[in-house]
């Protein structure tokens, strides 16, 4: 049979008129690398789950995207990461919410799916489970970028309520 793959890197935070040619090229290069990683898995007869994982691992490590390294800052200046994965064969699923020190939340979501009886784990409990599963942890500094930090500072300078913040600065 044939195979198909689609990927996304979010809805974008740079308005088209403000995106330089260099930025545009860099985003396209990152997306192509992620697409190629997943396509390689599928072209070689690999599983859809592994293709999805291959794509997201690259994007989580790429500071241009809001996941893993490059994730946005919370109001308090930290990072809270969420991820989920689902297998269409049997609708098995795994998800994690609000983890702060897991390099690849998508791997933790998959571990929740395959190595726990649960579907979603959150916060410290999820991080404890990650440690038990031997997943890689990183210090908070791993996730931070100047671009995202400045976005938080700009937002706070406007002295908006948190509701306004969530609504207008996603």
């Amino acid at each position, binding site marked *: 049979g044939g195979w198909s793959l689609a*990927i*996304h890197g979010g*809805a974008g935070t740079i*308005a088209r008129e403000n995106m330089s040619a260099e930025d545009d090229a860099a985003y396209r290069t990152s997306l192509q690398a992620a697409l190629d990683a997943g*396509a390689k898995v599928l072209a070689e007869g690999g599983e859809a789950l592994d293709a999805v994982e291959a794509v997201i691992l690259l994007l989580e490590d790429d500071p241009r995207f809001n996941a893993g390294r490059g994730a946005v800052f919370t109001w308090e200046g930290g990072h809270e990461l*969420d991820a989920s994965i689902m297998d*269409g064969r049997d609708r098995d699923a795994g*998800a994690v919410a609000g983890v702060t020190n897991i390099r690849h939340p998508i791997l933790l979501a998959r571990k929740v799916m395959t190595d726990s009886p649960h579907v979603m784990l959150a916060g410290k409990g999820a991080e404890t489970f990650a440690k038990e599963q031997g997943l890689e942890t990183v210090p908070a500094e791993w996730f931070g970028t100047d671009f995202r930090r400045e976005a938080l500072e700009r937002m706070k300078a406007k002295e908006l309520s948190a509701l306004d913040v969530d609504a207008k600065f996603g």
Partner: protein
Amino acid sequence: TVGAVALDRNGNLAAGTSTGGMTGKRWNRIGDAPVIGAGTYADNRSCAVSATGWGEYFIRVGVAKAICARMELAGDSAQAASDAVMADVKALGGDGGVIVVSNSGDAIYSFNTSGMYRGRATSEGMNEVAIY
């Protein structure tokens, strides 16, 4: 937010989504990404979906599951189902988009924002990335 959906040579579908949430979020806000049925869903009977956007609206609409259900129960195409559900999101005031791969191999996008970083590839030779 980042995500991927795939159909493999054995006809199996999968979906995944990962996100840092929203800038300046408080109160341990959780968006749609880890909520199965909102931001992520996969079912071999219909399709696989990963979403990005204003999570609360995707949760309220149950976006990912709704797309799969329209395809399975109403016979909608992936594009028609996705466009209808994203229109529902927009009608409520939300924005964002989805990527979908159907169990017949269609790889489509549907979004109501000006930009969505995206790409798709198939065994038929499609290979593209796009931003706007």
